[in-house]
C-alpha cells in the first residue's frame, strides 16, 4: 500500500476503505483517494471512449509515481500495438517493461484456432496472471478487455463461473485490478454483464457528440463503502493523458483577500469604492456589441502588467495581433508587455474543441504561466460549443479554480438583449463578484456608451450611470449630465453645456441693463431731490423774508410808537 493511502486513512479516524491512487488527474479527487485497493474496479464504456488509455495510465502512473508495478493483460491489442498507441502520451512501455516496472501480457484468443471438447477451466489464464504478477511484484493489474474471452470461447457457463472465480482470486491476491468492459446494446453496462462480478467500483466512460463537438464524460456509478462524486464529469485526453475535472471546491471555503487591484481606469476605480477590484475576485463585463468590453479588459490587462504582474488573456474572437493593433488606436501599447512576457495571449476558436477541453487547456496554461489576472474575452462565444448549462458548469469550475489560486478573473460577455432583467450572461452573473454593465444609450440620433456597476460584492460602489468615452487617448468615464431634461450623454451633453453658457451670457447682459436703469432712476431721483430742496429753500427764503419784514415792521412800528409817544408827551 502506498504512503498516500496510509496518510489518507490517518486523516479520517474511522477506518476507511483503503484506496489506491490512480494517478489520473482529477479522478483521485473525485473518488476521495482513488479506486478501492486490492479490489477489482470495472471501467466500462463504448468503443473509443478511452477505456484502454485509462487502464494504461493507471498502470503507468502507478509504476512511475506510486512505485507500484503493474501487469497489463491485453486481450485486444498486442503489446507492440499498445506501446505504439500510448507512445504519443510519452509513455514508454518498452522501457518500463525492461525496468520490470510493468509487464504486458497479450492474451491471444482466436476462435478459428481453438476447438473445444469437453470440460475445461481457465486455470491457464490464472497461472499466466499469477506468473506475470510475480515477475514484477505487481500491485496493480489491468484486464483489457476480459470480455474478449466470450468471443473466443463458446461455453458461457464455464466462462461465467471462471470469471467469478478470477475476480475472487484477484481479490485474494490483494492486487488492485482494473477491468475494462465494452458497453453493449441495452441497459446493461457491459455486453457480458461484468458488473455482476465486479461490484466494488464501477466507472462509466462516455463519449458524446453534440452539435458535432465531442465531449467525454466520466461517472462513478458505484463505489462501495466510499463517498464519491456522482455527477458526470467531463474529461479529456491530450498529450498528458486523461484529465478529469471535478468541481474542485464542493465547499465554499476560499480565502478572501482584502487587497485591491486597480482596474486601470481611475474613474472606474472611483466607482468601486475608490480602490478597484478585490484581488482574487471575479469580474464580469457585459454589454451589447461594440460597447467597449474588450477595451475595458485590455485596460485591466495593461494595468496588471504595469504593476509587474502577469496577465493571461484568452481571446475567443480576435487574434492577439488584432487586439494589440486595435488597442494601439486608443493609446494602449500592449506589445511591450507581450515582449516582456508579462502578457500572454491565447487565442483559439471556441469550436476548436469541446468545453471540457477548453477548460483543461485553460487549466494547464494557467498552471504554467501563473498569472495574477486572467481575462476571457468573451465567454459568450463558448456557448457555440455547449449549452448554457454546460458553459455555466464549466465557468463555475473555472472560477472556483481561479479563486483557489487567488487569481483575479475578468470575463467579458456579449449580451444580445438589452433588457437587464432578462440577461443571463450564461448565468455567470450570480457567480461573479463584480458585474459591470456597458450599454448603449441611443438618444438624439447618436449612440453613446453608458457604464454602471450592477453589483460589486463587499464594497461601497457607485450606483450612478457614467458615460463611458473611448478616445484616442484612452478610456475615461464622465459624469453624465443631469439637466432639467433628464440624463444627457454625448453631443446632447455638449449641446446642453453650450446652451447653459449662452444662457449665462444673456443673463449677465440683462443684469447690466437693469443696473444702468437703476442708476438712471437714482439720478432722476437725485435731481428731483435737488429741485425739491431748492424749492424748499426758496419757500424758506420767502418765509424768512416775511419774518424779517415783520420784524422790521414791528421794530419800525415800535420805534414809531415810541416816537409818537414821545411826541405826545411832548418831550
Amino acid at each position, binding site marked *: 500500500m502506498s504512503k498516500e493511502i496510509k496518510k489518507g486513512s490517518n486523516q479520517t479516524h474511522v477506518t476507511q476503505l483503503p484506496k489506491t491512487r490512480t494517478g489520473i488527474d482529477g479522478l483521485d479527487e473525485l473518488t476521495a483517494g482513488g479506486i478501492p485497493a486490492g479490489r477489482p474496479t470495472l471501467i466500462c464504456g463504448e468503443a473509443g471512449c478511452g477505456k484502454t488509455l485509462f487502464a494504461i495510465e493507471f498502470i503507468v502512473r502507478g509504476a512511475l509515481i506510486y512505485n507500484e508495478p503493474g501487469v497489463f493483460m491485453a486481450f485486444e491489442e498486442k503489446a507492440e500495438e499498445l506501446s505504439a498507441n500510448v507512445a504519443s502520451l510519452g509513455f514508454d512501455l518498452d522501457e518500463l517493461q525492461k525496468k520490470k516496472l510493468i509487464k504486458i*501480457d497479450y*492474451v*491471444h*484468443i482466436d476462435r478459428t*484456432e*481453438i*476447438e*473445444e*471438447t*469437453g*470440460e*475445461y*477451466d*481457465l*486455470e*491457464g*489464464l490464472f*497461472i*499466466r496472471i*499469477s*506468473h506475470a504478477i510475480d515477475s514484477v511484484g505487481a500491485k496493480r493489474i489491468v484486464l483489457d478487455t476480459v470480455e474478449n*474471452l466470450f468471443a473466443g*470461447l463458446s461455453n458461457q457457463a464455464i466462462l461465467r463461473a471462471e470469471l467469478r472465480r478470477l475476480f475472487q482470486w484477484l481479490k485474494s491476491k490483494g492486487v488492485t485490478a482494473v477491468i475494462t468492459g465494452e458497453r453493449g446494446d441495452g441497459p446493461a453496462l457491459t455486453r457480458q454483464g461484468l458488473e455482476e462480478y465486479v461490484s466494488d467500483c464501477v466507472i462509466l466512460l462516455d463519449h458524446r457528440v453534440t452539435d458535432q463537438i465531442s465531449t467525454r464524460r466520466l461517472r462513478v456509478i458505484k463505489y462501495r463503502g466510499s463517498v464519491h462524486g456522482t455527477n458526470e464529469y467531463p474529461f479529456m485526453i491530450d498529450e498528458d493523458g486523461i484529465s478529469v475535472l471535478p468541481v474542485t471546491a464542493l465547499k465554499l471555503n476560499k480565502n478572501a483577500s482584502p487587497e485591491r487591484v486597480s482596474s486601470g481606469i481611475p474613474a472606474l476605480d472611483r466607482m468601486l469604492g475608490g480602490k478597484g477590484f478585490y484581488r482574487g475576485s471575479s469580474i464580469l463585463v457585459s454589454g451589447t456589441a461594440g460597447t467597449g468590453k474588450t477595451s475595458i479588459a485590455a485596460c485591466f490587462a495593461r494595468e496588471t502588467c504595469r504593476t509587474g504582474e502577469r496577465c493571461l488573456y484568452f481571446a475567443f474572437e480576435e487574434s492577439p495581433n488584432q487586439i494589440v493593433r486595435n488597442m494601439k488606436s486608443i493609446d494602449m501599447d500592449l506589445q511591450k508587455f507581450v515582449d516582456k512576457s508579462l502578457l500572454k495571449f491565447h487565442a483559439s476558436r471556441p469550436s476548436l474543441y469541446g468545453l471540457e477541453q477548453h477548460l483543461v487547456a485553460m487549466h494547464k496554461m494557467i498552471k504554467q504561466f501563473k498569472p495574477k489576472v486572467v481575462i476571457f474575452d468573451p465567454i459568450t462565444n463558448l456557448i457555440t460549443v455547449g449549452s448554457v448549462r454546460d458553459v455555466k458548469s464549466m465557468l463555475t469550475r473555472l472560477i472556483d479554480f481561479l479563486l483557489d489560486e487567488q487569481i483575479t478573473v475578468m470575463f467579458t460577455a456579449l449580451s444580445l438583449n438589452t433588457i437587464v432583467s432578462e440577461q443571463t450572461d450564461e448565468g455567470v452573473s450570480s457567480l461573479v463578484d463584480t458585474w459591470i454593465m456597458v450599454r448603449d444609450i441611443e438618444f438624439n440620433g447618436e449612440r453613446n456608451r453608458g457604464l454602471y456597476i450592477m453589483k460589486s460584492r463587499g464594497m461601497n460602489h457607485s450606483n450612478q450611470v457614467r458615460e463611458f468615452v473611448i478616445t484616442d487617448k484612452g478610456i475615461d468615464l464622465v459624469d453624465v449630465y443631469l439637466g432639467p431634461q433628464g440624463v444627457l450623454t454625448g453631443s446632447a451633453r455638449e449641446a446642453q453645456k453650450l446652451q447653459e453658457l449662452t444662457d449665462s451670457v444673456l443673463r449677465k447682459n440683462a443684469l447690466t441693463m437693469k443696473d444702468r436703469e437703476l442708476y438712471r432712476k437714482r439720478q432722476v431721483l437725485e435731481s428731483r431731490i435737488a429741485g425739491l430742496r431748492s424749492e424748499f429753500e426758496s419757500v424758506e427764503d420767502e418765509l424768512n423774508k416775511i419774518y424779517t419784514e415783520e420784524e422790521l415792521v414791528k421794530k419800525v412800528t415800535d420805534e414809531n410808537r415810541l416816537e409818537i409817544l414821545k411826541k405826545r408827551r411832548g418831550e
Partner: protein
Amino acid sequence: METNDAKYELRLYVAGKTAKSVTALSNLKRYCEEHLKGQYVIEVVDLLIKPQLAEGDQIFAIPTLVRKVPEPIRKIIGDLSDEEKVLVGLDIRPVIKN
C-alpha cells in the same frame, strides 16, 4: 525430438494432476495410439511447474492441447472427451475401423 520422423508434435498443457488433465491425457494417448501410431510425440507441460511457458503458446484454458507440428498451430481445449472433435481439430484422418 526423439523421433525425427514424428509427423505430429503434440503438447498438452495441464495444471497439476487435476481430473480434467488426467482425463485429457488418457484420451489423447488413446486417440494417438489408435490413429497416429508411431508418428507422434506428446509433451506434457505442467504450468504449475513452468508457468512461464503459458505465454508462448497463448494458453489460457486448461487443459489445452497444442498441435505444434504440422503447421499451422492448432489448439484444442477441454478434456478431449469428444473424439470426433479432437480428430477434426488436429486434422487427423481417422483410421477406418473394420
